[in-house]
Structure formats: C-alpha cells, structure tokens
C-alpha cells in the first residue's frame, strides 16, 4: 500500500521535472534550429518576398529557382556557372583525402599497437603533437613545399595537405581502438601463416567498422568544411565549395540575391548533413566502443 503511494508521488515529482526538462530541450532545439529554418525558407522565396516579408514567414509562392540558379548559373567572381563546378572540386578533394587518411591512419594504428618497434611511443607522441599545431603556423611552409613539388594551386595539393594534417587524428583514433584489440588474434594469424597485410585485411579491418565510421565522419566534416587551406592553396576555378560560397556571397555585381546565397549554403552543407544522418548513430557507438575498451 505504502509502496504504491510512494510510486505515485515519485511519478508526479518526475513528471513535473520532466516538463521542465522537455521545455528546456525544446527551447534550445528551437534556438539552434531557427537559423537553419530561416535559411531553408529563404532559399525557396522570391527576392520580392524576401524584401517585403517577415524573415520567419513561410514562402507564399515557393520556388526552386534560387536553387537552380545557385547550382548552375549564379555569378562567382567573373564566371556565371553556379557552384556546381566547385561542388565537384570539393568532392574530388574530400573523397580521396578521407579515404587515404583513414587507410593510412588504420595502418599506423596497426603498426603502433601490433608490430611495435623501438621508439614507437615517441613516434606516436609526435603524431599526436601534430593534432595540436595550429593551421596558421604551417600555412607558409606548406605553400612553399607545395610550390616546390609542383602541387601549388591544385586539388592534388589540397588532398596532400588534408591527408598529412588528418593523419595525426586518424592515427590516434585507430591506435586507441587497436590497442584494445586482442594481440593473441594477431599471433594466431601469424602461426596460421598470414602476412602483414593479410592480417590487416582479414582479421583487423573486419573488426574495425565502428572506428572507420568515426574516422570517416570526422575527416569528411573537417575536410569538407575547411576554408583556410582551400583559400590558401587553391585559386580561380580550382577552389573548393566553401571558398566558392564565400566568393558567391561577396560578389558585388547587381542586387544581393539572398535566396540564392541561402540555397548555395544549403547545398554546401548537404553532404555533411547526409553523412551524419546516414552514419551518425554509428558515430556515437564507435566513440563509446573506443572509450570503453581503450
């Protein structure tokens, strides 16, 4: 009897605090989502409607013209071909950069945990240190090096820079993950006659799903969203999406087309959004797995 009274009291107490919690959560969600909402609705409005209407009101006569213009015909600098070329630049840069840095990171992690050599700790410490070097400090040396090897102003150069810069992080992720991977499995495979790469491919990689997802999301978002390297080491038609978006917004010919700017910004943000939606829950799971085991 008394038990039931207690539970019902606990019930009212928790439902009151629940209202507060959910209220706060809702409030913050609204605060965070409002800019996205404004961007989204603005990108479907006509210019007239933007000038006359309320920023928060839904579009009266929705149009996809701004999206088409942003994609295919908006003027960026002197050319008026939209952002599609730059979008392609970003894809061309981000896919190999993510793939290579992830693969190298996993190989590094493999060697640093399962094929240890004298001095492996120092090497790892140095790689970790690379994660903390501010971008600005390396801009000029990197530009010099890229120029010397003939990769200045090219997507290839950007790929190289992103791979090198990402290596510290990807190595860290994989090393911590593989540290917890049972060494006896590697030894069993050695006795079974598997070589260095066979062990990697047949034993280690199949068990690396969560950490691969974490690394890919992390690298993809970072490289896709990078502005500094893109604006420093590329120019003209060769710049990535983020730089082009900036140029589009800052282009001063004619009227300011907010709807086109918003649509272009949405397009620029889409790939990272997509990656999160598709793989986001694995991201959290992968981080947890590393945390618990490591």
């Amino acid at each position: 009897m008394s038990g039931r009274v207690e539970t019902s009291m606990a019930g009212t107490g928790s439902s009151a605090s629940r209202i507060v919690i959910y209220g706060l959560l809702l409030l913050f969600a609204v605060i965070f989502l409002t800019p996205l909402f404004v961007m989204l609705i603005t990108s479907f409005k006509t210019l007239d409607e933007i000038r006359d209407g309320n920023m928060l009101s839904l579009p009266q006569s929705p149009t996809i013209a701004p999206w088409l213009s942003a994609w295919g015909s908006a003027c960026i600098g002197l050319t008026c071909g939209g952002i599609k070329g730059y979008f392609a630049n970003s894809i061309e840069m981000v896919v190999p950069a993510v793939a290579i840095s992830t693969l190298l990171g996993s190989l590094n992690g493999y060697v640093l945990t399962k094929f240890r050599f004298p001095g492996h700790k120092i090497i790892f410490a140095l790689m970790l240190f690379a994660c903390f070097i501010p971008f600005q400090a390396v801009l000029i040396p990197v530009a010099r090096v890229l120029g010397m090897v003939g990769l200045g102003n090219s997507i290839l150069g950007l790929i190289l820079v992103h791979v090198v810069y990402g290596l510290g992080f990807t190595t860290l992720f994989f090393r911590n993950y593989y540290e917890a991977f049972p060494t006896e499995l590697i030894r069993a495979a050695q006795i079974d006659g598997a070589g260095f790469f066979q062990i990697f491919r047949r034993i280690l990689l199949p068990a690396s799903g969560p950490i691969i997802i974490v690394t890919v999301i992390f690298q993809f978002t970072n490289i896709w969203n990078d502005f500094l390297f893109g604006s420093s080491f590329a120019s003209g038609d060769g710049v990535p999406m983020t730089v082009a978006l900036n140029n589009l917004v800052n282009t001063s010919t004619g009227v300011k087309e907010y709807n086109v700017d918003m649509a272009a910004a949405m397009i620029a943000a889409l790939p990272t959004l997509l990656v999160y939606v598709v793989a986001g829950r694995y991201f959290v799971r992968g981080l947890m797995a590393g945390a618990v085991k490591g």
Partner: protein
Amino acid sequence: MAFLEIKGLFKRFGKVEVLKGIDLDLELGGFLVLVGPSGCGKSTLLSAIAGLDTISEGEIRIDGQVVNDLRPSKRDIAMVFQSYALYPNMTVAENIAFGMEMRGVPKPERDAAVERVAATLQMGHLLSRKPSQLSGGQRQRVAMGRALVRDPRVFLFDEPLSNLDAKLRVDMRTEIKKLHQSTGKTIVYVTHDQIEAMTLATKIAVLRDGALQQVGTPAEVYNRPANLFVADFMGSPSMNLLTSRVVAHNGGTALELPRPNEAAILLRMPPNVAPGAVQVGQEVIVGIRPEAITDPDGADRNSPLVEIVEAHVDVVEPAGSDTYVVTQASGKEVIARMRSDADVRPGSRIPFAFDLNKAVLFNPESRQRIG
C-alpha cells in the same frame, strides 16, 4: 636425439631478463608440461618456441633443424591460446580452414579437412556459427580443431583450460590426454595448475622467475622434488616441510621435530638419504607428503621404515574419500591423510604413521634436496 631441443635460451625485454638460460628437450611424441606460478615466463617460453617472439640468446631445434630464424608459420607448429583467439568475423569452419587457406590449399581439400576435424571433435553442428554464438567449452573445442587440422610437428598449448569452469576443465583435460594418446603428437603445454601438470605430462618442467627448477617425470618431480620451491608448488595439499635437527639415536641418526608442551617427535633417518649426507647436529628440512602420514592401518606395508608417533589432533577435515588430520610439529601445522573411516576426533591423541621411505630432506640454506 630429442625432437624438440632448447639450449641456453635467454629472453630479455629491454633490461628485464624474463628467461634466464633454459635448457630443455623433449622426445618425439612426448607431452611436456611447463608449470610454474603466474608471471614466471611460461608464455614467453612458448612464444619463443612458436617464433612469435625473437629470443635474445640460445638455440631452438625441432627435429634437428635450428628454427631460431624461422617465422612461426614456417616452424610447422600449431598453438592453442588461453583466450582461444578465434577470429570473430569468421565462422567456425572458416576459422579452422584459415591456416590452410593462407597456405594455398585448394578449397575442396580444406572442406574435407574441416569435416574430418569436426568429426573427431564432435562439432559438426557448430561449423556455420560465429565464435560469439559459442559457449566457452565449444570455443575451446574450435581452438583445438584449428590446431589439429594442421597436423603440425609440435602442438603448443598456453593454459588452454584456465578459462573454463571446474567441471568442464576436468572433462577437457581427459579429452586432451586421449587426443595425445591417439595421435601420438609432440606437445608442449603450459599451465599454472599443478594437477593438470601431473595428470597430462610425460615430462614436467617447473619454472620459477625464468629459471628451470626441475625437469623430470611427474613421479620424479612429485616424489623427489629438487628443491623447496618444487616441493611446495607441486601437490595439493602441499608437502609438509618441517624444520628439524639431526640427532644421534640408537647407534644411528634420527630427525628431531620439536613440539609445544611435549617431547619432540623422533623419526629415524629416511632410508633414501645416503649415509654421511647429513651430520649429527645439522639442521635440515624434512619434506613429507600428507599421504605419507597416515593412521597405522593405512600405512604402506611394503615400506621399509614406518614410524608410529602419538600426537595430538588439532583439526579434522573430512574430504570425502579421505580425512585430513592436522597436528603440530616444528612450529607448523602438519597435515596427515587418513582413511575416512579412521576414528579421529579433534582434541584426542592418536597414533600417526610416518612413512619415512617417502620423506625427503632439504638443506635450509641452499634450499636444495639432500641426497
């Protein structure tokens, strides 16, 4: 010539010397058990034989061939790991076949070999499962299957039963013994469990802090331990090790074991101690196993020297088939093993029969056996 020979083996990790000069050999078809407390270097020695770790000094030969510089896969050995080390992303069948696949054995042959091993170990129904879907005992079985399918020159086992519960451990122990008898393979087996060592081995090597203490048949190691460490480590309950003094007695010598509040126990000199090996007045440690101290009716009738001594019973511990009876001597508890139907009550005085034919003496300074 022995099938497996280890000569002057040293292993150092940086400055830490983990194996300190191991000399060991094993004949073809032998079952060598490396036994010793945790951290004494058993796994390191096994890894050295397998080639998973390089060695700092010394030589390892298999069938006359020096294998120091051979990779593990070229040594023709198979190993069963403590954690079983089953590849989690592969089915049982793929696990068993992986080694053959790496060696380029054609698929039909691999399948046939897997079938054969699965039949031997009665696990045909498990072949398509993943390791995560198996119980501990089944994983153990698969790990054995993976080793068996290779038909190697030497099997290496690293504490293969230590993750199983007590009942399963005893079953698998019997199974491993049967497997050895039916295949006649050469096996090196690591355990910290001295009972496992006694039941499985044709040869036991006792290891402590990276140095061999004694190598011999189970009977030798059990009955004539080389030193106090082996005497104490092997056997459960362990050997009674009692400090005593050599005294003159009836024209010969005897061992005097002081007791609280009564006359010391006097035991005539064990017959297997060579005359002159000990002097009157010398202090020695007498080692005598619980089963060599019995009730008079239970004493070995063929023993040339049994001493009957009256002593006070402190504790009685029935253990099913036997009863352990505890008394005091030399400031320690002395455990005797009596028949379960012997009439013993705590606090009473009863006769204890010491079978001195089974007693051994140790030098308290050098800690080595005398004679």
